[in-house]
């Protein structure tokens, strides 16, 4: 019964999401796009977390994807819609290279290297001034779909669908068992014949490619990229806070967290234009200390307690 119920909810939510542009105006659609973007990023972050690896490099790969997409259009003459999958492939390949070098030593080393990624990509883009536009950034001639609010909304929804689909695939396929085994105990995973290095590489490449895809979608919807706008710490911080608050190691958790925190973020941005990120820092601290399983964990515990009382 529970399974059917959740399927029904998913279906209704999907239909609502698809037809949202016929009900609301431009500003709510804009807010919805931001929420969906952060939701998608949070889900990709969580997908890698399921293997026990923490990436602080979301903003780095997101920004790299954004630049790959913009430069694909400006320098290689790609149509906008081609440049978005190109951004995904570019980030996937970059992650393959980086992952191949650093995933041999995992955990802390991996995290710190990813922490540096946004900064490193930013420096590279600053320095390849002639090709990338340097610190001033680059502007596209026109926004994709001529900037039509509903089409931009569906584009972002498409990006979200890709990451939710990938996350579902990660949950239901063999990858799930491999990643969970690695997270729980590397030694026993290895002795059960799990090839840790290649599974981690797969997870890192897939999540990075999706982050690049989202970067491409983001930048094509706004029509410009500067190092400061696309490598913004926001893109690392908010997904982290969202996934942690909602509940990690699941698809539902980040979705829940994004609905809550994504909407709150829109409001906070207006209240505290400078330094609203402090709220996410505090959320991260509080969640890690007092409810490491997030809201989803608390909900599960309450339901279980209620079930026990019934029985």
């Amino acid at each position, binding site marked *: 019964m529970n399974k059917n119920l959740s399927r029904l909810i998913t279906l209704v939510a999907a239909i609502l999401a698809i037809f949202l542009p016929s009900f609301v105006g431009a500003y709510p659609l804009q807010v919805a796009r931001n929420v969906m973007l952060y939701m998608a990023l949070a889900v990709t972050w969580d997908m890698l977390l399921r293997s026990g690896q923490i990436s602080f490099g979301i903003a780095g790969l997101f920004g790299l994807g954004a630049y790959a997409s913009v430069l694909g259009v400006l320098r290689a003459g790609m149509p906008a819609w081609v440049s978005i999958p190109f951004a995904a492939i570019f980030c996937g390949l970059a992650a393959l290279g980086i992952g191949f070098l650093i995933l041999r030593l995992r955990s802390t080393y991996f995290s*710190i290297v990813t922490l540096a990624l946004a900064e490193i990509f930013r*420096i590279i883009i600053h320095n390849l001034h002639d090709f990338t536009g340097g610190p001033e950034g680059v502007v596209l001639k026109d926004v994709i779909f001529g900037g039509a609010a509903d089409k931009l909304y569906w584009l972002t929804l498409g990006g979200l669908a890709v990451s939710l689909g990938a996350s579902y695939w990660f949950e239901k396929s063999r990858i799930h068992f491999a990643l969970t085994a690695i997270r729980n105990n590397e030694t026993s995973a290895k002795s059960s014949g799990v090839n840790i290095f290649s599974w981690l590489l797969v997870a890192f490449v897939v999540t990075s490619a999706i982050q690049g895809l989202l970067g491409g979608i983001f930048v094509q919807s706004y029509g410009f990229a500067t190092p400061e706008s696309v490598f913004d710490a926001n893109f690392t911080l908010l997904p982290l806070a969202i996934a942690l608050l909602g509940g990690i190691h699941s698809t539902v958790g980040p979705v829940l967290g994004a609905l809550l925190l994504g909407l709150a973020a829109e409001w906070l941005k207006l209240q505290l234009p*400078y330094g609203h990120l402090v709220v996410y820092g505090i959320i991260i601290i509080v969640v890690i200390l007092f409810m490491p399983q997030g809201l989803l964990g608390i909900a599960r515990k309450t339901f279980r307690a209620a079930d026990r009382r019934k029985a």
Partner: protein
Amino acid sequence: MTLKSRTAIILSLAAAVLIILWKPTVLIYGVQQAGLYAAIAIPMGLVLGIVHIVNLAHGEFMMVAAYATYFACKATGMDPLVALIPSAAVTAVLGWIVYRLTIRRALKAPELNQLILTFGLGIALSQGINILFTSQTRKISLDYVSASLDIGDLTFGVWSFIFVVFAAMYAYGLKFFLTRTTAGKAALAVGQNPKGAAIVGIDVDRTYGIVFAIAMALVGAMGALFLTRSAIFPMVGAPFTMKSFCLVAMAGIGNIPGILAASLLLGVSESILRAFRETRGWADIVFFVLIIAVILGRSIKRRKS
């Protein structure tokens, strides 16, 4: 091993001589920068070696101390070198509070939770400062900072050698503390084996708190010194966290001379790149290349053993 380290020393001496002959100021500024890096990395090594926490808020503590120094100097007109002491006290107390309230609760948690926690702490500190004082850059102008020395036709700034002095003080002071004082010996014991230390009657929790506070005081003093030479803004500390980790990882845990050597390598390499207009922008990428080299080296070593 000795042969290997001897060749390493000879090679680096040869490199140093070559650089001196070619561009002496490159070496001088490189050494000064190395002093700064080492003095900031040593406290991180201390925390990592004894409390076993990678503190991703490390640079942020330095930034907070720099702000404390700035406002102390503006309010009372005192010199940053005097304000260094109260600023170090501020970060020591802050470090103690942060330890008691957060890190202590995460000591038994998985390593990844600790990373996320200190990452969140760093964000809370830098964005807290951002809310309070905006992201405007702040600087104190001091006369003695521009002091320079002429040797022949060579002119260079001497003030930044204070970083080297502090790095040396930290290295020797820490060695003295850990091997000659009771509290230091207790800390070392806790670092090596917390359970064993608890059995022989050492208060592990208190030791962790004290070590963390001491490390944050040392970083805080560097924040005050950093302010004498550079402008500060809320995000100024973040690169130092990563560079410090890079240096500690290169040296290996508990290896203070290793941190000094790694700092020299990083400082001088950056200084060489900064010497040319075409390569200047790439200087900040050196630490990333180094850390990837370290990871590759470690993984090869691990596979051999």
